[in-house]
């Protein structure tokens, strides 16, 4: 019990929270970029321009079928080999963004697919252009359906940032490792702290998503 009390000293807790902040920063930045790129990719795949959409679809499939860890290794260790050097934080954000964009593209595409075809037809027959119909009619409805899957994707992103400890990104898991690296007795307290912190953040996110979902369905 004493080891728990010692391990959770003010300095250590502060250090853990610093790590958590980096986790949140990297996750939020990546999800914002991924949301933009994923939406564009999802639309590109949806509009069905012959070779273009198929090619986009194939690249999305390739990325979705690779381990995120490999993409992370690629952006941090492999790119310098061809002259592109990224720092730890940019390399992490780029890797997460590549992976999550592909995931979100699929969510966006199925979100758009879920909007009844009549919506597009009605918008077009009222005189809106395809782009106007997409932006003002289809996407707002699609985004509503996409909120729950996007939040669960965000939750896995928060969990996956822990993989970046391997390239020494100073996030939560890495900071915990440093603390228990100094004193063996802190190992179990640190793992407990990690589990609790990740759980609290992610469970709060999923509760939030449930709440938003309920609101939207009532409105």
């Amino acid at each position, binding site marked *: 019990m004493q080891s728990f009390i010692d391990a959770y000293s003010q300095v250590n807790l502060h250090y853990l929270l610093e790590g958590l902040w980096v986790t949140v920063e990297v996750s939020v930045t990546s999800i914002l970029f991924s949301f933009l790129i994923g939406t564009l990719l999802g639309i590109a795949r949806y509009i069905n321009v012959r070779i273009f959409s198929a090619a986009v679809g194939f690249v999305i499939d390739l990325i979705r*079928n690779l*381990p995120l*860890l490999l993409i992370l290794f690629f952006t941090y260790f492999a790119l310098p080999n061809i002259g592109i050097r990224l720092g730890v934080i940019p390399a992490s954000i780029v890797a997460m963004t590549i992976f999550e964009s592909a995931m979100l593209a699929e969510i966006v595409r199925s979100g758009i697919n879920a909007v009844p075809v009549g919506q597009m037809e009605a918008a077009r027959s009222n005189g809106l252009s395809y782009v106007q119909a997409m932006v003002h009619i289809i996407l707002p409805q699609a985004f509503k359906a996409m909120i729950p899957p996007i939040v669960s994707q965000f939750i896995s992103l928060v969990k996956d940032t*822990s993989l970046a400890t391997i390239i020494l990104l100073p996030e939560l*898991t890495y900071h915990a490792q440093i603390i228990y690296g100094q004193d063996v007795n802190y190992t179990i307290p640190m793992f407990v702290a990690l589990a609790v912190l*990740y759980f609290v953040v992610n469970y709060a996110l999923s509760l939030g998503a449930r709440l938003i979902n309920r609101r939207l369905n009532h409105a």
Partner: protein
Amino acid sequence: MLSILTNNYGTLMSGLGYTLLSSLIALVFSLIIGTVFALMEISPHKWLRVIGKLYVEVIRNIPLLIITMGFYVIVPKYLLPVDGFTAGTIGLTIYTSAFIAETVRAGIQSVAVGQMEGARSVGLTYTQAMSQIVFPQAIKIVIPPLGNQFINLVKNSSILAFVAGFDLMYQGKIIANATFNTFDTYLVVGLLYLILTMPLSYLMRHLEKKWVTA
């Protein structure tokens, strides 16, 4: 790029073998554990439901790395010696079982309630109705998402690289460090992962389409 593959063919194949082995072992055990927790989640007993729900929610919201490292770092120190491959596979099993529990639960709940009621009113017990009427119908619904879980499992097994589990990612890291040719090495490793995951993911998409329309 080709030289990386030819010079390290044996190492890469053994890595691929360990990746596949770990994924298959984890699949079998997480199917069993996942199904047990799924049944607990929908059980008529309140306490079983609470335990099932708790397990799934806790495991799903913790990173795989934390679970795996927990086994790799803590278990050998206080309980019994485990190697990286075992610790990694146990971590994978526990993590995946929570997702499989959710998939199986959703599958069982998508079988019409009337099926259970009908079976019960004909005189079957809860266990009989579940195992002979509801479960067989749920399996068909559940297979495509389970296939996707297996793809995730193959990808997630790269976590073994963290705990010296001799998998594809781990061997790739060693080859990259030895040859300094990181770009080509990780390209080759990526292609090998795709050989495992791409056919499976297209197969699952095909099954989804076929069975949804059927």
